[in-house]
């Protein structure tokens, strides 16, 4: 058990080509890195062996939400003081993790969420079609969770230990992003948004979820509300 440490959880599914480069910079900050290989069929698990990180492997593919939850549970078990969510495809900025952690350290928030829509420069990096979709998604999220955010489905987040222990994601796939908001609300966690830059590379665009997936996410959201 190690006390007083920041754990960065990196869910990784078939990211063998990118994961090492995404993780390396994290190590220079002294963060503990937990990579969850979500049943990849490429050699993600093998390339991780060369890195001084905690590697966890789902024997079968469950989805990003499940991988994040596995990583968070593990980090809490290991005594994490703060838990950060970070994507393996290199679209998040490692130098902005401190911006997420700052409000947590000061006790201003239990959860800090990255937003692409707080800085004009960040917003301009978002493709127009995505901008429109995300703005629509913030309205849907507001309707379901009551949280008035400027961004939706931004995977760049940080939690205090206590907040991380309260979050229990049941949506295995991409709907976990709105599920997190609902749980923030339910557990009355103090949250805030900070600017975050998302680097849309050809690689991350190809790996990311297609825009059409919005319909699936909306369905999950409604099903969760009425079938639980």
């Amino acid at each position: 058990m190690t006390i007083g440490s920041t754990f960065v959880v990196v869910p990784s599914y078939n990211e063998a080509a990118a994961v090492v480069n995404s993780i390396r910079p994290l190590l220079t900050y002294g963060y503990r890195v937990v990579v969850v290989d979500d049943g990849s069929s490429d050699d993600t698990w093998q390339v991780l062996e060369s890195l001084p990180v905690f590697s966890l492997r789902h024997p079968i593919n469950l989805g990003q939400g499940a991988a994040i939850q596995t990583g968070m549970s593990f980090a809490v078990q290991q005594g994490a003081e703060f838990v950060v969510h970070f994507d393996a495809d290199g679209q998040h900025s490692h130098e902005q993790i401190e911006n997420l952690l700052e409000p947590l350290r000061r006790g201003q928030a239990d959860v800090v969420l990255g937003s692409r829509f707080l800085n004009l420069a960040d917003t301009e990096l978002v493709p127009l079609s995505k901008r429109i979709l995300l703005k629509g998604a913030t309205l849907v999220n507001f309707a379901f969770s009551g949280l008035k955010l400027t961004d939706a489905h931004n995977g760049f987040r940080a939690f205090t230990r206590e907040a991380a222990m309260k979050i229990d994601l049941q949506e295995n796939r991409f709907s976990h992003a709105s599920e997190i908001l609902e749980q923030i609300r339910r557990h009355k966690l103090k949250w805030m948004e900070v600017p975050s830059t998302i680097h849309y590379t050809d690689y991350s665009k190809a790996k990311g979820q297609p825009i059409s997936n919005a319909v699936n996410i909306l369905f999950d959201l409604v099903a969760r509300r009425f079938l639980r």
Partner: protein
Amino acid sequence: MTLIQILLIGMISLGVLQVLTATRHYRVLLLLVGAIAIFLVITPDLATKVAKSLNVGRGADLVIYLSIALLGMLWVRLFLRGRAEQRQITMLTRSIAISQARIPSEMNPSNAAEHN
């Protein structure tokens, strides 16, 4: 007996038999439902009489309405069970991943303190 009646009775019997051999659950219920179905096929007028007393036009309509309701119930049950099973698989997978975690090699108790 018409050809369609023979066909339907054959299909119902086969279906009931198949489920009976596949599972030990609901045997009595299944036999009962199968018997009613075959009885209705043999005496279509009976279904119409029951339908009329319920203000439904024809016996065939009544059978269709009831089938749709039953199928809907089964679908919801299957959906919920599928979700519960998915949840169990997730918990199992998670506990395997955590219990078999690869710990960084430099992290033995003697130098763990240099972190953070």
